[in-house]
C-alpha cells in the first residue's frame, strides 16, 4: 500500500489522499444510507398501489406496528456488533411481561398468581428485571463459561418460551394493570407513545454506539476481542453489559406490545427472531461483529415493515404473503450485497 511510496522527509502537508482509502471512506459513509433509495422506491410504489399508504394514519400505523420489533432489532444490533448473537430475545419479549402479569394480575379475572405480594405499580420494574436476569444468565453461560452464543441462546429461546407456556398454562394474560398498558396504548402529541419510545431509543443508540467510549468498545470487541483486551477494554464486562442491555430492551419491547394488545399471549414473540435478524442484516449489520450501525438497522426494519404494509394494502392472497415476505428479504439481501459491498457478511 501507500507506505511503499518513498518519501524521504515527511512533508508538512498531509500526503495526497490515495484513491483506495478515500473511496473506502465514501463507501463507509454511504453504507448507512444504502437503504434510503429503496425506502423511497417502496414509498412511491406503495403510493401508486394505494394512495392511503402515505396518509398520516397509515404512516403512524406502520411506525407503531414496527416499534416493538424495531426495539428488538436495536437490541440484536448491539449484540451482533460485539460479534455474538442472542436468539433468546424473542422469548424474553414474551416472558418478561408474562411474568409480571402472572405475579400481578388478579386470578379472579384471568390466570395469574395475584399473590397480593406485588402492588400493580411493581409490574413495570418486574418486566425490566426479568429482562436483566435473562441477559445476566446468558452472560453467565456465554461470557463466564465460554459456551457458544448461538447455541446457548437457542436453548434459552426454547426454555424461556416453555417457561411462559408453563406459568400461563398456555393462556393469555388479560386484565393487565394500567401501569403495564400505559406506554403501549397512550399517545403523546397525537403520536402513539410506543413510536416515541422506539425513536428515542434509536436516537440514544446512535449516540451511544457512535460517540461514546462504551459504544466504541462494542465495535472494538466485535472487530477483534484480543486486541480490545490488550487495549485495556474489559471485554468480559462489556459483553455482559451488552447482553443485559439487549435483554432489557427486549423486555421493554415486550411491555410495549403487551400494552398495545392489553394482554400477554403465551405465544408473544414466537418466530419474531427471524424478522429481527433479517432487518438487522438488511440494514447492514454484520453477523461477524464489528460492523454495522444503529441507523442502518433502523432503515432495515423500516424497509421491511413498509413492504409488509404495501403487501397488506395491495391485498395479496393470504397463502402467498409468507412467500412474498421471504422473497422480499432475500431480494433485499442480494441487492444490499450488490450495492453496498460486503454489507451482510
Amino acid at each position, binding site marked *: 500500500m501507500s507506505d511503499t511510496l518513498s518519501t524521504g522527509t515527511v512533508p508538512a502537508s498531509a500526503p495526497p489522499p490515495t484513491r483506495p482509502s478515500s473511496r473506502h471512506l465514501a463507501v463507509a459513509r454511504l453504507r448507512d444510507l444504502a437503504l434510503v433509495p429503496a425506502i423511497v422506491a417502496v414509498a412511491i410504489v406503495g403510493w401508486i398501489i394505494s394512495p392511503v399508504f402515505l396518509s398520516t394514519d397509515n404512516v403512524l400505523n406502520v411506525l407503531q406496528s414496527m416499534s416493538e420489533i424495531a426495539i428488538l432489532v436495536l437490541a440484536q444490533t448491539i449484540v451482533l456488533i460485539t460479534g455474538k448473537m442472542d436468539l433468546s430475545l424473542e422469548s424474553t419479549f414474551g416472558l418478561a411481561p408474562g411474568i409480571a402479569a402472572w405475579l400481578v394480575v388478579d386470578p379472579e379475572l384471568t390466570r395469574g398468581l395475584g399473590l397480593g405480594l406485588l402492588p400493580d405499580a411493581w409490574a413495570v420494574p418486574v418486566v425490566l428485571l426479568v429482562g436483566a436476569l435473562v441477559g445476566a444468565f446468558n452472560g453467565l453461560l456465554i461470557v463466564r463459561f465460554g459456551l457458544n452464543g448461538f447455541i446457548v441462546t437457542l436453548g434459552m429461546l426454547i426454555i424461556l418460551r416453555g417457561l411462559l407456556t408453563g406459568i400461563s398454562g398456555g393462556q393469555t394474560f388479560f386484565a393487565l394493570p394500567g401501569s403495564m398498558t400505559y406506554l403501549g396504548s397512550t399517545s403523546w402529541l397525537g403520536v402513539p407513545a410506543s413510536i416515541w419510545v422506539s425513536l428515542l431509543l434509536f436516537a440514544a443508540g446512535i449516540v451511544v454506539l457512535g460517540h461514546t467510549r462504551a459504544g466504541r468498545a462494542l465495535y472494538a470487541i466485535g472487530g477483534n476481542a484480543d486486541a480490545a483486551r490488550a487495549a485495556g477494554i474489559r471485554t468480559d464486562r462489556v459483553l455482559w453489559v451488552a447482553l443485559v442491555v439487549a435483554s432489557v430492551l427486549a423486555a421493554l419491547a415486550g411491555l410495549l406490545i403487551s400494552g398495545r394488545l392489553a*394482554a400477554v*399471549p403465551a*405465544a408473544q414473540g414466537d418466530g419474531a427472531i427471524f424478522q429481527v435478524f433479517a432487518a438487522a442484516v438488511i440494514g447492514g449489520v454484520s453477523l461477524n461483529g464489528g460492523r454495522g450501525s444503529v441507523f442502518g438497522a433502523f432503515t432495515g426494519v423500516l424497509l421491511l415493515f413498509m413492504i409488509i404494509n404495501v403487501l397488506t394494502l395491495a391485498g395479496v392472497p393470504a397463502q402467498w404473503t409468507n412467500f412474498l415476505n421471504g422473497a422480499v428479504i432475500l431480494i433485499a439481501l442480494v441487492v444490499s450485497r450488490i450495492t453496498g459491498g460486503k454489507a451482510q457478511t
Partner: protein
Amino acid sequence: AGCGDRGAGTGTGGGKPLIGVDYPRSDTDFWNSYIRYVPQSAGQLGVDLKTTNSQNDIANLISNAQTFMSQGVKGVVMAPQDTAAIAPTLAQLESRKIPVVTIDTRPDTGTVFMVVRADNRAYGTKACQFLGTKLGGRGKVVMLQGGLDSINGRDRTEAFSECMGKEFPGIKVFGEATDWKADVAASKLQTRFASDPDIRGVYMQSSFALSGTLQILKQRGLQVPPTDPKHVFVVSNDGIPEELKNIGDGLIDATVSQPADLYARYGLEYAKAAIEGKTFQPGPTDHGSTIIQVRDGLLEDQLPAPLVTLDGAPVAGQPTVKYDDPSLWGRKG
C-alpha cells in the same frame, strides 16, 4: 336411537379402563381449558389417564400414539389438527383393536369410533349471520383469519365468506391471514382501518386477537354503544371467560362458545363406551346434540356451539345464549 344400546359389559375386567389422551397443543386459551377439563372428567367417569402433548405437530402425535400402544392403553382420544396425515396411525390403532375418539376434527380417511366436534363451518356461518343482520346487509367487515394451515380456521373462513357472498352480497369482506398471532392481527386490522376507516364489523376466528382488537377500537374512539352509527360490531370465537366478560361490558357483541368442557367429557365418555363394547346410532342424544353419520361407518356427535350475545335474543331466526348463562363453559371455570 338415543344414547346407544347398553351392550353387555364386556369391558375391562376389574380396574378402571386406561385411556390415552393426546392434547393437540398447549399454547392457546381454548385448548388449555380442554386440558384442564380432561382430568376432571376422567375423575367423574372413573377412567385412568395417560396424557401426551403433540404441540401441534403431527409427527409428535404419531409418536405419542406409539407410546400409548407401548403403554397398553385400551382407548385413545386425540384431536388431530391435520386430518389427512393421521390416517396411517388410525390404521395402526385399528389393527391393535384400540378404539379412537377424535375431538374437534374429523379424519379424512380411516376408522374412528366417534368424532366429537362442534361444527366449525357453523361458527363461520353464525358469525356471518350475526354481522350481516346487525349491519343491515351493507358495509365493510374484516375477518381476522387464523392460520392457513389449520383445518378449523379454513372451515370458518370458507363458511363465513360463503355465507356473506350468498346472503349479504352488499357487505365487503377483507380477509386477513394472521397465523393465530395477536400482534399480526393487530397490525393488519390497523392497516385496514387506515385504508378503510368505515369498517363496521370484525370477525375474529379465535380469541387470540381479542384484546388487540379492543385496543385498536379504543385508540380510534370506536368503542361506542351499538345504537351509535359509528359502532363496530365485533364477533369473537371460543367462549373463554374474558370474552363473556367483554360482552357483558358491551365491548364486543357476540362470540361462539366452543364447548371445551363437553369436548373433554364426551371424548372420554365415548372412549370408555367403546372399551365397554357399546355402540351408537345416528339420531339425537341425551345431551342436546345429534349424532350424524358423515360417511359410511363414521359417526359424529355434533355438540352445540351456541352464539353468545348480550341479551340472548335470537338473531336471524337462530337462538342465541345470554352471556351470563350458567350453562356456558366459560362461566364454570
